Structure formats: C-alpha cells, structure tokens
C-alpha cells in the first residue's frame, strides 16, 4: 500500500488504530525514493536501514511516533552528515550533536532518516547553487524546485517524504513550497530555536515545516516551537496547540491586500490564480481591505545588505581549522584560510561573502549596514501599522512560476529581485505561510503550482494557519 503520499495526520490515525505499523511507512517511503529520487534528486543522503530499525521501536503514543521526517542539510542531526550542500563540509563533517528542533522531533517520536538538497549554505532561490547535485521540480523536470529549501519541498511534493524541515532567511521555505505545490511555513522570529542550524543571517533565519497540508504544518510547529536556553533569540511563549481552530473559517476576518504587492511585474497567469483564491476567501466571509506597505520597494536592497553582511561574519568559522575542508601544504595560517575557502566555497557563497565584507568594511559601514538597519525598522513599522487594521495580509509568494533550470544562472541581481514578496517578512520578523492556490499551464504543457502567501503579525501563526486552511479547503 502506498503510504508515503499521505499526511502525518492520516498516517498517525492508522498507526494508532493498528492498521499499519511504522515499518510499513518506511517501506513505502523507500519505494518512493527508489522510484523517483533518481530523477528528482531531492536527497543528498539517507539511511533507510537505520529508519527501519528505528521504526521497530517507535513509541506510537507520542505525537509524531513512527513518522519519518526529512531534514534540510543545514540542520545538525547527531551522527549524520551536515554538508549545507557545500564541498567545504561534504564528506568531512559528521554532526556531533542534535539541533534543538531535532531533539524535539526525536522526543515526539519522529524518525530522522534523510538529508535534503539545498542551495549551498542556503544562499539561492533555485537549489542550483548546491555543490552536490541538481534537484528537479516534480511537476516539471526541466524546472527548478525553488530554493533554498528546494530538496525538502521537492521531496514532499514527489511523495518521497511525508514532511520535512527547511529554513527561511528571505523566503527559502515559502518560495520552494509555492513552486512545488506544498505548504511551507516560516514561523515568527523567536518562535523556533535555531540552535544547531548552520547560521546564514542570524537576524533573519528561522526553521519551519514543509508539509503536504496545513494541518501537518500546525502539527510540526507544535513540536518544534518554544523557548530554548541555547538560542538567546527564542521567545517564551504560551503552550499552543496550533491544530486547534484550524477549521474555524475566515468569516469576519479582515485580510489586507497591500497595493505595493499587486503592481506590475506579476505573471498574469499567476495573478489570476492568486485573485481567484482571494475571491474565495471573500465569499467565505472575509473582509478584504486595501492597505499600504510604503517601504516595500526598499526591501530587496535592505535584505541584500543585511543578509550578506551577517553571512560574511557567520561563515568566517569555515576557515579550515576546526572542521571541513583544509588545503594541502599551506605556506602559513593565512594561506590555509584563503585557499581552504577558495576550494571549499562555490561562486554564490563567495559572491555574498565579498559583498558582505564590503558593506561592513571601514568607511562603508554607516552608508550600508547602519542605513539598512534603519530601513529594516521602517519595514517592520509598516507591518505593525497594517496589523492595526487587518488580521493577516495576502499576496503572491513569487511573481512567476518555477523557473527553467539555468534561466538566471549568470544574473544574480535578477534572481534577487524575484524575492520581493517574501523577504519583507524576514526583515520584519513576522510569520508567513505559502499554501497552494491553483496551477498554471506552461508552454510545454506542464502544470505548475502557484502559491498564495499569508503574512501574519509577530507570533500570529494561528491566524495565518486558519486562513491557509480555508484556502486549502476551498479547492
């Protein structure tokens, strides 16, 4: 029986009623991976034999008992590789500890068996920046799955994972979820501990679930959220069951449509699907309110100062001394750093480290980083003002459908500009979810998914999950 195409919730029911056992799920998953992952390339590594063993002793009384979860390759799982899809760490690094989200998943009974592909160090939006191989979009193999959590999204979309974790610094969960037709949640800054996530831009990074449906997203958020002494930015929060109230509907809710997000530059076919799903929310009783987020046009520039600046600092740890790639026969310690990094990093990582080092360098710090911090504050304030008037905000996730592999390879600026709808949420620290809202037929006849983004106030996950569920159930 095929089980790998079912949701966590559905599988849990069958597990607790005794209709299936965890090993059945692993068996189905192994079949799906063997059949599909050759052409999709969602996984960098997996250990299904270990998963089978873990399945035998799975404690089914736990909330995720016996459920396998795929993990993006930048989250540490003790005893497994954690390469960040980089040559710098590939083959030479084994995690000596569990990230906090991993400890929480283990405590909830989940089985951690595989690592998904990504853009190197999460820098990119197509997964083409992986140094370890291509991932293809399950809906059209000539197209990218999006990124940077492209492996996680492609695994869930091709039913070669039940659910997965990703990380989102500027849209890296929501955008691939949109391109692959699955549900991707970026929690609020502070909702989930990042301890054990390889840091990219520390003031923006969050870990979140990529799932087949909204209920699974809520279920995984229940498990991974919470204050953690190992991440000083994680917040004290009331114990919330995010699956409660999911089906309450949107009647009486005020949903904002930012005029800056519905201007030119959106593919008309994408726009049509988004408009249709917004109409359905209106018929379901939501009140639509036009709002303004006046600093939207500055978001991409702000992000491409702050994110590379923080990355250049965070990635200084990859120096060839304590772990990862070390060059042979260095002349001295500086030569060891310089050549180990040259060898180990791919072009996009180098580009961002150079950009980040530049904007932080003497004489430029005020003009770039300080200015960007001020604008970040203005963007945050735009959202705070908007949430005085509305409960959640609706927008496309991306201006276009999944790009053909290789399309913007030599034009990084063009790729950066496509992040316009997702990066503001990271700058403002708010939460956002991408939920499938229809498909567009490509020139070659493939059916490409479109996502609707729902942005909520800081720590407002319950509201956006409820709206996402309403979108999902209106299909």
């Amino acid at each position, binding site marked *: 029986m095929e089980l790998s195409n079912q949701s966590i919730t559905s599988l849990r029911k069958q597990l607790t009623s005794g209709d299936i056992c965890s090993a059945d799920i692993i068996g189905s998953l192994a079949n799906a991976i063997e059949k599909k992952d050759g052409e999709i390339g969602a996984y960098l590594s997996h250990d299904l034999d270990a998963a089978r063993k873990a399945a035998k002793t799975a404690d089914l009384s736990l909330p995720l008992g016996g459920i396998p979860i795929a993990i993006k390759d930048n989250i540490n799982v003790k005893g497994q590789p954690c390469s960040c899809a980089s040559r710098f760490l590939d083959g030479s690094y084994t995690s000596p500890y569990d990230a906090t989200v991993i400890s929480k998943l283990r405590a909830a009974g989940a089985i951690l068996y595989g690592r998904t592909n990504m853009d190197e160090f999460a820098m990119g939006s197509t997964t083409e920046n992986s140094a370890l191989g291509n991932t293809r979009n399950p809906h059209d193999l000539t197209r990218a799955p999006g990124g940077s959590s492209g492996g996680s999204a492609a695994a869930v979309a091709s039913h070669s994972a039940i659910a997965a974790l990703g990380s989102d610094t500027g849209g890296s969960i929501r955008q691939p979820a949109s391109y692959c037709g699955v549900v991707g949640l970026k929690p609020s800054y502070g909702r989930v501990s990042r301890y054990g996530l390889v840091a990219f831009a520390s*003031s923006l990074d969050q870990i979140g679930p990529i799932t087949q449906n909204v209920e699974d997203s809520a279920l995984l958020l229940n498990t991974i959220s919470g204050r953690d002494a190992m991440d000083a930015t994680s*917040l004290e929060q009331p114990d919330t069951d995010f699956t409660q109230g999911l089906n309450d509907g949107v009647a009486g809710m005020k949903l904002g449509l930012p005029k800056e997000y519905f201007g030119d530059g959106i593919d008309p076919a994408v726009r049509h699907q988004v408009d249709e799903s917004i109409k359905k929310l209106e018929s379901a009783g939501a009140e639509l309110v036009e709002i303004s987020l006046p600093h939207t046009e500055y978001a991409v520039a702000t992000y491409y100062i702050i994110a590379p600046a923080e990355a250049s600092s965070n990635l200084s740890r990859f120096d060839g*001394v304590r*772990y990862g790639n070390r060059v042979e026969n260095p002349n001295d310690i*500086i030569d060891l750093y310089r050549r180990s990094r040259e060898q180990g990093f791919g072009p996009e990582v180098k580009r961002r480290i*150079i950009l980040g*080092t*530049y904007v932080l360098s003497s004489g430029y710090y005020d003009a770039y980083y300080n200015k960007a911090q001020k604008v970040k504050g*203005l963007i945050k304030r735009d959202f705070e003002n908007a949430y005085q008037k509305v409960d959640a905000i609706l927008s496309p996730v991306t201006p276009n459908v999944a790009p053909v592999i290789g399309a913007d390879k030599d034009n990084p600026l063009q790729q950066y500009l496509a992040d316009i709808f997702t990066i503001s949420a990271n700058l403002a620290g708010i939460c956002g979810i991408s939920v499938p809202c229809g498909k567009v037929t490509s020139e070659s006849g493939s059916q490409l998914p479109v996502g609707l983004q729902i942005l909520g106030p800081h720590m407002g996950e319950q509201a956006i999950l409820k709206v996402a569920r309403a979108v999902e159930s209106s299909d």
Partner: protein
Amino acid sequence: MSSERTEQIDVRYVAKLARIDLNEAECETFQEQLSAILGYIDTLKDLDLDTTDTEGQPAVDDNYLREDVSRPSLSQEDLLRNAPESAKGQVRVPKVVDA
C-alpha cells in the same frame, strides 16, 4: 538603475579582507556582478533617514540572560573528530608565531 555615486568595489582587496583567494576570471565576473548589485542597493539613497528613529531596533524585544554557571558540553574527543588535523587533544595548524 545606475547612479552617479556608486562606489567602485575593489573585489581583489575585499577578497583579501575576507580571506578568500579568487582567480582572475572570478575577480572579473564578481566585479561586474557586484557593481550591478551595489548600483541597485543605492536605491536606498532616495530615502531621507536623518530623522528616522528606527535604528538598531532589535529583531526581538526581549532579552534573555542566563546564569553564568557551567553545564555539560560536548567532549573534546567528539569535537576533534571533525578537525582536519589534531594532536594531543588540540587542533593542529601551521606555525602562527615565530619562536
């Protein structure tokens, strides 16, 4: 998108600061690409931020400080397992200071 003020980034110099060797081809490509990106970033110049009071707004408003007490951590052995070279319980690197 280009503006008159865009500073010319000296990729070779910045790569030195960043401790990354780049070959000639990379230097040239990055020079061009990063100049375009910095040109775009200059759109922030249009904003008058002199009276803006949002500087240094923390991403989260709460600050958690912990007690300064020791607690169990990973063992030296576990951590050195990932080191490219180690000796006598330490990471080994080329000589840093002259004797």
